[in-house]
């Protein structure tokens, strides 16, 4: 655990509730204006990093087609996951699926970086603070050769770890597997992810007891999505992909609990001066 300061969260969650800034309401959590502004501030910082890294912003629709999730293998990988359909589409369980769908049957002239943001929905169970069913996810997607994609992930890992530490978050970079894999081969999938180092999570300490929550993940997909969506590199080589995901409300909550609401909200105010 990379400890940058003694965490002081004893009353922070209570204060957030009293300030009407973090209010669980049924399956949703309602954010007050300061928490919303903090969420947007975190996003603006990530976008700055993305643009400096040469990313193109990809606008995405609110809903994603069921057929896109099928093609992405979502229901095979996570058969117990519930995806609600309404109005001709589903709430996406992750933002990056939109990116792969947009690249369907294309040939990439050179390696590329993209970024997009979407409201996502997942029913993963668990009652811990910050695990929302509906949340905002910013993602950075990079596609290129295997070596280039692996290098991108390392650079993004270093960049975001340094960013979190500069904000005095108490963070740990941890090897991870998708805990919601289900089905007969679930253990095999998890072990493959583990052995190949395909997924790392940046976990932030959320309370004085040491409870942590993943605020970002750094992922390699090998050729899984390029085969599913039929995109490749111009030289005929198979395209590899990777992504970095940011749970923006989780970042804002980690900041509010670690720094205290007042100091966390002042990050936004300092920016506006």
């Amino acid at each position, binding site marked *: 655990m990379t400890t940058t300061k003694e965490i002081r969260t004893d009353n922070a969650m209570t204060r957030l509730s009293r300030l009407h800034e973090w209010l669980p309401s049924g399956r949703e959590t309602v954010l007050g204006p300061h928490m919303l502004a903090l969420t947007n501030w975190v996003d603006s910082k990530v976008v700055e990093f993305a643009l400096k890294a040469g990313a193109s912003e990809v606008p995405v629709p609110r809903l994603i087609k069921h057929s896109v999730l099928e093609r992405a293998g979502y229901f095979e990988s996570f058969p117990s996951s519930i995806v609600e359909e309404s109005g001709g589409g589903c709430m996406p369980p992750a933002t990056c699926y939109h990116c792969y769908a947009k690249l369907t049957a294309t040939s990439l002239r050179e390696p590329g970086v993209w970024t997009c943001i979407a409201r996502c929905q997942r029913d993963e169970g668990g009652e811990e603070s910050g695990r929302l069913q509906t949340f905002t996810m910013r993602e950075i997607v990079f596609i290129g050769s295997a070596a280039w994609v692996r290098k991108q992930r390392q650079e993004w890992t270093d960049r975001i770890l340094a960013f979190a530490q500069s904000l005095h978050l108490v963070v740990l970079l941890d090897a991870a597997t998708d805990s919601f894999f289900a089905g007969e*081969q679930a253990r*095999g999938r998890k072990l*493959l992810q583990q*052995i*190949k180092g395909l997924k790392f999570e940046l976990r932030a300490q959320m309370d004085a007891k040491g409870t942590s929550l993943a605020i970002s993940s750094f992922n390699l997909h*090998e050729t899984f999505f390029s085969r599913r969506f039929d995109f490749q590199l111009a030289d005929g080589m198979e395209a590899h992909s990777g992504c970095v995901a940011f749970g923006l409300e989780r970042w804002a909550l980690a900041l509010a609990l670690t720094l205290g609401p007042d100091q966390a909200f002042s990050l936004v105010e300092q920016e506006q001066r």
Partner: protein
Amino acid sequence: MSDARTKLLNYINGELLTDPTRRAAPDTPLFEDGWIDSLKILKLIAYIELMIGRNIPDEEIVMKNFRTVTVIIEHFKSK
């Protein structure tokens, strides 16, 4: 070559790698290019568990212990 290494190589080449153009050598990286998928890794672990006579906890299943047949044998021979 040790008996254990030969035995494990024979199992991988005979039972796991169904593509006849793919044959693992003692130092072939097993987890590149999709040689081992999510079903085959379970079979591989079950076979090694039989060989060594104990269960392998998940936290021991990492690349530094499983990169090649040679690495697997070296890691588990002293445990």
